[in-house]
Structures are given as structure tokens and as C-alpha cells.
């Protein structure tokens, strides 16, 4: 039965006690804004992290068992922990038919014109370079001479295709044959600030006794586990010779961690919504007690219990809806401020995975008010009409 009269009661009562209603609504607004901005912040955090990381999930990185982690390589060339050519052969055999890319890595002083600096250095078979890296200008390495440089390094030293720079203590001169495409932070190699040279140049310059890491490009994601196991079985059966990482697992661990952080911050926002719920509960109880006599009158002229319940339920529902709508609108601003302060980057504010927190926050806001209004509404409907009529 459609009885808008009870909605009318609710609206008029909220208007009559407008200050009280406003305060209760502000509670909900703050709660919704807190939840939503925290959600937006968390989601933007995850988005910005995953954009920084190279999201290729089809790579396995093999590094010597001791001596640095997957992400902290490039420290020194003189490490004893290297992958020997015999180990490389076993890795290659274990990884058939997938592509295996052995990598020398290090760091070296470079000198461009008058400027000197330090750059990461990777040595690779020239045929492997196109498999791993993309070109933005010039061409890929061909012979033993020449080098490719990462886009950030090129920018820092204003290098272009054809520029020359010198590298190392003896000042060997190299010509830039190509500039790489920006790649972001990777688990295999970080090429944005690096110089890529051919393996032959690296060997003739440094005479390394082994590779620093081996990258296996797997054709399809489903095969990653199998290849990883096969490498482990082949090399680590007797003693652990190498550590095998798959980038997908690393990536998902990182994203999972940030997901947890973001859940935690939302939970903190949720506390303010609980406080808002308590204040709605309080306002509704006040409303019920003040109108106790009116409840008695309504019951005596023929209001059913459920109609009384509905009347008070509408009040908390209206508070929740109004508070959540305002909160939803304000949380765009709240999210902006949170991003500005915490991330100093607001570009992810309008991403769908951030914006989804606005309806989520609003649903929580309405839900909290409705839950807080249930008991007062029930209390009102259970009033004994005789006692209620006698109530002063």
C-alpha cells in the first residue's frame, strides 16, 4: 500500500529539527567522504605503482643464488656470483623452446661532452636486444661497436642517435645507434637510465667470468610455472645454485600488498562512518522519545505497528540518502586533496577503479543510517499505546 503520508511525516520532522538533522547528516557526509577518499587514494596508489612497473608477466629471471636481489643488481662487475656458461647451457636446455637471454650488467662512468655521470650498463647478444627492448629512435645494435641508450639517460645528457660519448676509466668512445622506448621499472632490467652494449664489447672490455642474470621469455603465461620448475630442477637439485623469479608473482605480491594497505585506509575511513551511525542512532532515539505521545495518538487512531516503524525508518533513510549524496559529491574534492597530499599526482582521480569508490562509499553511508535507524524504529513501533498516550 502506498502511503506517502509517512514519508511526509519524516520530511516534516527532519525539517522541524533541522539543526539536529543537519548535524547527523554531516556525520554521514564525513564518513562517506573519508571512506571514498581513502578508497580513491588506495586505488590511485595501485594504479600509479602498476604503471611504473613493467607489467610483462611473461618473464622469468634467473640470478645467481647469492649476491643481490632481483631488483638491486648492477652494483659491481667484480661479483663472484655469476652464472657460468655451463649453467647457462643447462638453463637453455631446461627452457626449451622458450627464448633465453643472458645479460651482463654493471655500472660505469660516462662522459658526454663536458658532463660526466654514472649509468647502468647492460651487455646483451645483439640478436636478443629486439626481443626485450623497444626502439624509439635510430636502430638496434648490430656490430660489436655502438651502444643504445635509455630515454631518460638520453634526455639527461641530450644525446641523440649519432651522438658520441665515452665510457669507463679509459674513456672508450661509443656511438649512440638508437634510443630505447621508455619501459618503466622492470624486474628483469631497468633500461630507462642505462647504456646497452653488445655482449662482445662487454666481454672484450671487462672480461667477465659469467653472466649476471638470465632472462627467459616465456611464450604464454600458462607455461611460466612449468619452465620455472624445470630450471629449478635442472640447477638446484643438489644445491641451490640460482634463484628463479617470475615477474608475474613479484608483481602480484606487490599489488596485493598495496591492496591491503588500501583496505586498511578504507577501514580507518569506516570508523568515522561508525561514529556517524551512532549519532544517527542518537538522533532517532531522541525523535522517538520526543514523539512518544504522538506515537500513542497515531496508534489509537489506527496506525499499524509496521506503519509507525516505516515512519521512523524513512527518517533515517532520508538522512542517509541526503548525507550520502552530498558526501559522494564532496568526496571527489576529498579524493583530490588526499591525492595531492599523499601522491602529489591527481591524474588517477577520474580512473574508473577510483571512481567506483564513490558509489561504494554512498552505499555504506545509506547502509549505516538504515542500520542505525532500525532499533529506534522498532522501539517506536513496540510502544504501548496507553503508556504512550499518558506520556508527557
Amino acid at each position, binding site marked *: 500500500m502506498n*502511503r*506517502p*503520508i509517512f514519508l511526509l511525516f519524516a520530511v*516534516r520532522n527532519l525539517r*522541524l529539527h533541522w539543526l539536529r538533522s543537519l548535524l547527523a547528516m554531516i556525520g554521514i557526509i564525513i564518513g562517506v567522504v573519508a571512506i571514498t577518499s581513502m578508497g580513491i587514494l588506495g586505488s590511485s596508489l595501485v594504479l600509479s605503482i602498476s604503471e611504473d612497473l613493467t607489467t610483462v608477466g611473461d618473464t622469468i629471471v634467473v640470478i645467481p643464488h647469492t649476491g643481490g636481489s632481483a631488483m638491486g643488481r648492477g652494483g659491481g662487475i667484480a661479483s663472484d656470483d655469476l652464472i657460468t656458461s655451463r649453467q647457462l647451457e643447462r638453463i637453455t636446455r631446461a627452457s626449451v623452446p622458450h627464448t633465453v637471454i643472458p645479460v651482463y650488467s654493471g655500472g660505469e662512468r660516462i662522459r658526454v661532452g663536458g658532463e660526466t655521470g654514472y649509468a647502468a650498463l647492460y651487455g646483451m647478444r645483439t640478436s636478443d636486444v629486439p626481443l626485450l627492448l623497444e626502439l624509439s629512435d635510430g636502430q638496434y645494435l648490430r656490430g660489436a661497436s655502438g651502444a643504445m641508450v635509455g630515454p631518460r639517460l638520453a634526455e639527461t645528457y641530450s644525446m641523440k642517435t649519432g651522438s658520441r660519448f665515452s665510457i669507463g676509466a679509459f674513456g672508450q668512445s661509443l656511438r649512440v645507434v638508437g634510443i630505447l622506448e621508455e619501459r618503466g621499472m622492470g624486474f628483469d632490467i631497468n633500461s630507462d637510465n642505462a647504456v646497452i652494449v653488445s655482449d662482445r664489447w662487454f666481454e672484450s672490455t671487462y672480461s667477465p667470468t659469467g653472466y649476471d642474470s638470465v632472462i627467459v621469455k616465456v611464450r604464454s603465461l600458462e607455461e611460466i610455472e612449468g619452465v620455472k620448475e624445470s630450471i629449478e630442477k635442472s640447477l638446484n637439485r643438489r644445491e641451490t645454485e640460482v634463484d628463479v623469479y617470475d615477474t608475474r608473482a613479484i608483481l602480484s605480491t606487490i599489488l596485493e600488498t598495496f591492496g591491503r594497505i588500501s583496505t586498511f585506509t578504507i577501514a580507518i575511513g569506516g570508523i568515522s562512518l561508525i561514529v556517524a551511525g551512532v549519532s544517527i542512532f542518537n538522533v532517532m532515539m531522541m525523535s522517538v522519545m520526543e514523539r512518544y505521545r*504522538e506515537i500513542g*495518538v497515531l496508534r*489509537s487512531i489506527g496506525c499499524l*505497528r509496521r506503519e509507525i516503524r516505516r515512519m521512523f525508518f524513512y527518517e533515517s533513510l532520508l538522512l542517509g540518502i541526503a548525507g550520502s549524496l552530498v558526501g559522494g559529491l564532496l568526496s571527489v574534492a576529498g579524493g583530490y586533496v588526499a591525492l595531492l597530499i599523499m601522491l602529489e599526482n591527481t591524474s588517477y582521480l577520474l580512473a574508473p577503479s577510483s571512481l567506483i569508490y564513490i558509489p561504494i562509499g554512498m552505499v555504506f553511508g545509506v547502509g549505516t543510517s538504515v542500520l542505525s535507524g532500525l532499533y529506534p524504529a522498532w522501539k517506536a513501533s513496540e510502544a504501548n499505546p*496507553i503508556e504512550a498516550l499518558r506520556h508527557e
Partner: protein
Amino acid sequence: MKTAIRFKDVSKIYSLKSGDVIALDHVSLSIDEGEFIAIMGPSGSGKSTLLNMMGCLDTPTDGEVFISDQNIGEMSDDQLTILRRRHLGFIFQQFNLIPLLSAIENVRLPLILNGGSDVCTDRCRNILSAVGISEERLEHKPSELSGGQQQRVAIARALINNPEILLADEPTGNLDTKTGAQIMDLLSHLRKEEGKTIIMVTHDPTLSRYADRVINIVDGRIQ
């Protein structure tokens, strides 16, 4: 003559911590349709309990109460509420209009509760003018009306669903003598012209002259 209200050996006992209180003690009575009854008695004599039971707000501990031939002891809360809505009209000493609603909305409320639409203002206007509320007061809130006017609106509210029985608890208790007399004239007019059964609780012996019959109750027993 049809019987409007019948009490058959009715007792009401309230269990309090300090012991049981017998509010009604084996009361039997019968009220015909169209009768004007005054219930009189000292404070705490049980007259309010009697009226509440006639109003289906209370049910008996023992015995049977029939309102419009329905045994209220066997009915659920919702059924009692519907019975009140359709067959009973309440008039209170404190008027008890809903403060959030205007005069005409107060009158319309029972009509809406009874499933009527909220546009039947003609009937509301007619009833309000019949009880003596002028057109320009219709949109006034109860707080903007005098006591006499409020009681007239309350009577209109009690009448809107055309109930057979009107229950009045000290209807003139908060009014001056002159206004009180006007309200009493209105009630006896309703009984004479519309054949309403009217049951009125009062302290005031001078009002008993409006009644066909006076029920005196002392210590939960009819004298």
C-alpha cells in the same frame, strides 16, 4: 436495538513489583448503539481502563469484551488496530492533534490510513465545517489554534471514517466552561442526528445531564 459494546465478567489485573493491582473486577455491562454513556468515578477507580478496553487499546485478563460483535481478546495487534481505524473514534482531554500536520491534514490522516486517497478534501472540509471550523483555519497547525478549535478538529478527525462509536476521555477537561458546553452540545448533536454511540469519561457531575445513562465505577466495580 443492537448492542455496540458488551463486557462479560471482565477483569483486568496489572502485575506490578509492589503486587497485583485489580483495575477491573468482574465487570459486566452492555451498551446499545446510539446510547450516550457517561463513565464517572474517582481517580484510580478503573474508568480509564474501562475506556481503554472499549477502545481496543487494552485487552482483558479475564472475561470477554465484544466491540461491534468482535471478541477483542482473540484478536492480534494488527486486527485491533484495523478495528480502531474503522469502528472507533477517539477524543482526548489533551486534544492530541499531530503537531506536524495542519488542521485539515489531521482530519485526513485516518482516511489515508484507511486506504483512502489523500485528495478527498471535500469530505474533510464538510466535516470540519460541521464541527465549526472556518475555512481560513484549515491550513493552520494545531499550535495556531485555540483549545476549543483544537478539540473541534479532533472531533472531526474522530468522525472522518464514520465510526459507530466515539470514545471521549474528559473531552472538556482542558476547556473553559463556555467552550466545554459548546463541545458537549456538538457531541449530543452527533448522537441525536447521526446516531453515534458515545462513551465519555468525566469527573464533572454537571456533564452527566448530557448522558442517557451514567456508569459509576469505584475500585474496579460498577456501582
